[in-house]
């Protein structure tokens, strides 16, 4: 359910940080609470008349966002934006839902595409179509559709596109005599071969804590977990396509070619760094992750297209990706919408987002900023050209109003299935029924797909 900096990873990093702090402070700690101050969105100044100075609060977890915002603040003395850094997508959503319910959300927030419907159905996001509606032509249709939800309203400005890709250790693939897979069948064959040659090395890890990754893989295969027509939602989480993907990964896990370690744990980071995991099904935002996850692998990891179900196809799933939304409770929606448009379409801003934030902008005009590859991938000069290809081939997706419920249930059901290397079909059914029953309980009209 993650984007630039997924929750688990942020937790793991936070854990490392806290552990370090603990070691330092162990001598004098006295049983006090170790909670860090997490203040809610401080309400912005209440001036409404134009020409007066306005301060907007902005929740985001893009690294170095304050550097990007500093450019705006310098040019717009009347509309000052104050960044309040969040830990990651999940924590921010949790805080956002609570703060919005309490009536003191920030003015602006980074909103992942998959949770946008949740916020919209709770009426927490402002419709900014009258301010930013003209930006439609700047973005790929797929991203635009995710922020309009197919209506005439606009609930956010797309920030980054997140097509999935396969990363692999070029040197170790050569060492074990593996071919870079272009289809999932080849990927499975590689896994089998690798397992027979080096049983303690894996072609990656199936991470039950990352429902967003699995959702992306099913999108690639053609699944539509949610769809809406008229006033009825259809939920197709356990349709034949998703079952195919689930059985495929269950088979890989059972064969021993793929590990079952959750991603972004200290153990997983170590495996990524020391060559225990030699492939990673990930996303074009991975360059912002690699330097901390696998510092020793710079120049050795390479990106290639996600393996396909049918040879010769070019489809990518989406894992994460987010937009900049204006909260309905904001008193300065116009100013906030103006900033959201600038952040995601102004060439200076998108260039800074790439260089400082390490994200792949959704704005189609922003490619100029992407000529130089991320420093971790200096061995792949065409890194961003590839990313652009994958983004163009990303599957269309409609997110439902309770993705959070689906993802929570996924982590529970697939967690125990991955731990026991058992069937993946019953957890898939568990997710489907949890989502359907949650939606029915809330009064949605639901048809099971």
């Amino acid at each position, binding site marked *: 359910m993650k984007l630039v900096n997924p929750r*688990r990873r942020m*937790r*793991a990093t936070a*854990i490392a940080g*806290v*552990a370090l702090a*603990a070691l330092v402070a*162990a001598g004098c*700690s*006295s*049983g*006090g*609470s*170790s909670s860090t101050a997490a203040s809610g969105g401080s309400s912005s100044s209440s001036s409404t008349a134009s020409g007066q100075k306005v301060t907007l609060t902005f929740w985001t977890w893009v690294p170095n966002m304050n550097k990007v915002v500093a450019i705006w603040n310098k040019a717009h003395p009347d509309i000052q934006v104050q960044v309040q850094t969040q830990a990651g997508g*999940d924590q921010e959503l*949790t805080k956002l*839902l*609570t703060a919005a*319910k309490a009536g003191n959300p920030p003015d602006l927030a980074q909103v992942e595409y998959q949770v946008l*419907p*949740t916020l*919209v*159905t*709770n*009426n927490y996001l402002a419709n900014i179509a009258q301010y930013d509606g003209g930006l439609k032509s700047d973005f790929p249709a797929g991203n635009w559709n995710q922020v309009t*939800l197919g*209506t005439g309203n606009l609930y956010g400005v797309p920030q980054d596109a997140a097509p999935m890709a396969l990363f692999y250790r070029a040197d170790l693939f050569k060492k074990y005599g593996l071919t870079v897979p272009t289809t999932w069948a080849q990927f499975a064959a590689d896994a089998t071969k690798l397992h027979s040659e080096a049983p303690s090395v894996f072609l990656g890890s199936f991470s*039950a*804590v990352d429902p967003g990754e699995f959702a992306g893989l099913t999108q690639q295969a053609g699944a539509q977990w949610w769809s*809406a027509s008229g*006033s009825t*939602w259809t939920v197709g989480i356990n349709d034949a396509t998703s079952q195919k993907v689930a059985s495929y990964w269950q088979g890989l896990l059972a064969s021993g070619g793929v590990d*079952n370690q*959750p991603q*972004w*744990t*200290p*153990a997983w980071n*170590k*495996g990524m760094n020391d060559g*225990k995991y030699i492939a990673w099904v990930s996303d074009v935002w991975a360059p912002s992750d690699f330097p901390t996850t696998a510092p020793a692998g710079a120049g050795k990891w390479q990106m290639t297209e996600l393996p396909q179900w049918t040879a010769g196809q070019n489809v990518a799933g989406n894992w994460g990706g987010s937009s900049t939304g204006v909260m309905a409770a904001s008193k300065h929606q116009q100013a906030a919408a103006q900033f959201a448009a600038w952040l995601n379409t102004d060439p200076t801003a998108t260039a800074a987002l790439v260089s400082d934030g390490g994200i792949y902008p959704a704005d189609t005009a922003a490619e100029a900023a992407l000529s130089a590859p991320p420093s971790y991938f200096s061995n792949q000069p065409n890194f961003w050209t590839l990313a652009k290809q994958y983004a163009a081939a990303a599957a269309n997706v409609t997110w439902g*109003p*309770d993705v*959070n*419920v689906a993802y*929570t249930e996924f*982590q*529970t059901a*697939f*967690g*125990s299935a*991955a*731990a*026991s290397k058992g069937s993946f079909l019953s957890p898939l059914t568990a997710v489907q029924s949890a989502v359907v029953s*949650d939606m029915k*309980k*809330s*009064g*949605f*009209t639901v048809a099971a797909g």
Partner: protein
Amino acid sequence: MKHAQRRTAPRLAPYAFVTPAIILYALVLLIPIGYTIYLSLEKTQVSGLGLGAGARRQVFAGLGNYSSAITDQAFDSSLLRVAIYSLILVPVMLGLALLFALLLDARRVRFQRFSRLSIFLPYAVPTVIATLLWGFLYLPTVSPFPTILAKFGLSMPNLFTTNLALLSVANVGVWGGTGFNMIVMYTALRAVPSELYEAARIDGASQAQIALRIKIPMIAPALVLTGVFSLITTLQVFNEPETLLPLTNTISQGWMPLMRVYNLAFDENNSYEAAALAVIIAAVMFAGSFFLLRVSNKRVFQGR
């Protein structure tokens, strides 16, 4: 007449004195509890696709949240899990605490002050940090144990399997909680009049007999107290599994009852059902502690 007036005046004063306390009590306890109960009887009602403004309303749900809480499999299995968890943790922790307290109270112990402090020390380490330390020790790739065990030709078992995870979490609880309970019991032991020991020794009782026949019965009230408190804390377990959650597949979001409450309220944005779960948990705990105290009151405190 004069007489009657004189009697009413002092009767008002006590009320004036308790008013601040009652107001505070109402503000911080009664009103939140009442609000929780109110929330537990509500739910959201969506119309259509739920996308328009005002498509989501809060309506009365009756006991719907309670019935779905009771039939919620995740919640039921978390209740069972916490029951097993306390059955493991409380006896082990209190047993160790009692053992240490008796050992420290025995006459010929060297380094008494040092031992007392070092047993107590883990209690001073914040739970989250203690759990992180243990979590890192449990993960084979970052733990020093596999290397040490390999020297003896042994391998480290996976401590996060479905069966062992509960023990692994309980271990953190034992490590952190033993010291505190030991101090409570030790303090109670020091309060036992030494004439009793002298009398016992004159009668020829051994140290073990003194411990079993005199010391333990004499500190029974302290044992009951620590037992009830430990049980309540154990049933509220949240920090340890929540901290270990990102490290393993085995511990899920609703692994323990309070985690399920948190998960429902914040991850799934359903404060109504979360409130119902909270009410159920509170009722169970209240009934449990009440029952325990009733039973132990009869046995321990009778005749005093």
